[in-house]
């Protein structure tokens, strides 16, 4: 059965790029436009991994990671931060919140699929 990846980004075009890369590699993708909308999708359904932007309106990516990690059912869900942020300070914030990896945009689909397959076991 195909694994499901939750893609969170406020840019519709970026979500499309990520979705195309992941569905091409055989993953199911569900989408959310911000952290709060993504949290609403953590309702007990099977989600194997999340790919999350950092700078988003309403609820940013770091806040989402913290909130997701507080949910027992999703505590161990790996989260890859996919962002234009390249500052070490931000990376450390992501790591402290519980993210498993940090990838800077623009990314290549192969790079993304490799990282997802490594984390989504």
């Amino acid at each position, binding site marked *: 059965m195909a694994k499901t990846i939750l893609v969170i980004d406020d840019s519709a*075009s970026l979500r499309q790029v990520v979705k195309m890369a992941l569905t*091409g590699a055989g993953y199911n993708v569900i989408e959310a436009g911000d952290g709060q909308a993504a949290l609403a999708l953590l309702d007990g359904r099977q989600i194997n991994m999340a790919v999350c932007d*950092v*700078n988003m309106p309403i609820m940013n990516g770091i806040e989402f990671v913290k909130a997701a990690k507080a949910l027992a059912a999703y505590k161990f869900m790996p989260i890859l931060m996919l962002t234009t*942020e*390249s*500052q070490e300070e931000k990376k450390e914030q992501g790591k402290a919140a519980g993210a*498993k990896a940090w990838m*800077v*945009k623009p990314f290549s689909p192969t790079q993304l699929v490799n990282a997802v397959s490594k984390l989504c076991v």
Partner: protein
Amino acid sequence: MSNTQDSATDARASQAFVTLCAGVLPIWLRQLESSRTQSETAVAQMMQAFADIGPHIHLAQTHAHAIAQALTQADGGTLGLVEACERTLVPLSDLPALSSEQRQGVAAVLELVRGAVGALQAIAGPITNETKQVADHVENMYRGFQYQDRISQMMALLAADMSRLQEAANAGGGPVPELEAWLTRLESQYAMSEQRDTHNGTSGQGADDSKETTFF
């Protein structure tokens, strides 16, 4: 001209400048937002087109790989077919009982098989190469599309800053925001090193922020 007259002239000039800003900034804002939305729509449409051809490219790659494998496998592959024909037919053609015509017939069949397999191999190489090149180009295009997101982020940031400036211009007699504090606040909102470089007028690593994935 007296000091009082100078002050009055300065005040009128300041007020005229504030009025100018208050009139121009909302238009800049609307144009910026409109351009941002249009670029987002254009990329979304282009992405949709690639979403449609993506599976076909993937399938072509899979087929090209299967063809190359089928040709190069020594056992069961097309090359194996040549070897099997040679193993079977070459000893046959050496049989003394065979007439000259029969020997020529066996040799002709062998040549046909070799020729057909050779032709297939000559086709498979370029197909594999071409499909790989197409896939590489598409991958580069996926990367290129993401620059729209960078531009969109910068435009949104500038729009927000223009909006703040507009509010400050409309505030009337309140204190004028201090330039250094304003610029520090603006710089703190940048996500990319290229934005900081542009802000400071320095040459950094440009648009290439991308590095290997960091695993924690």
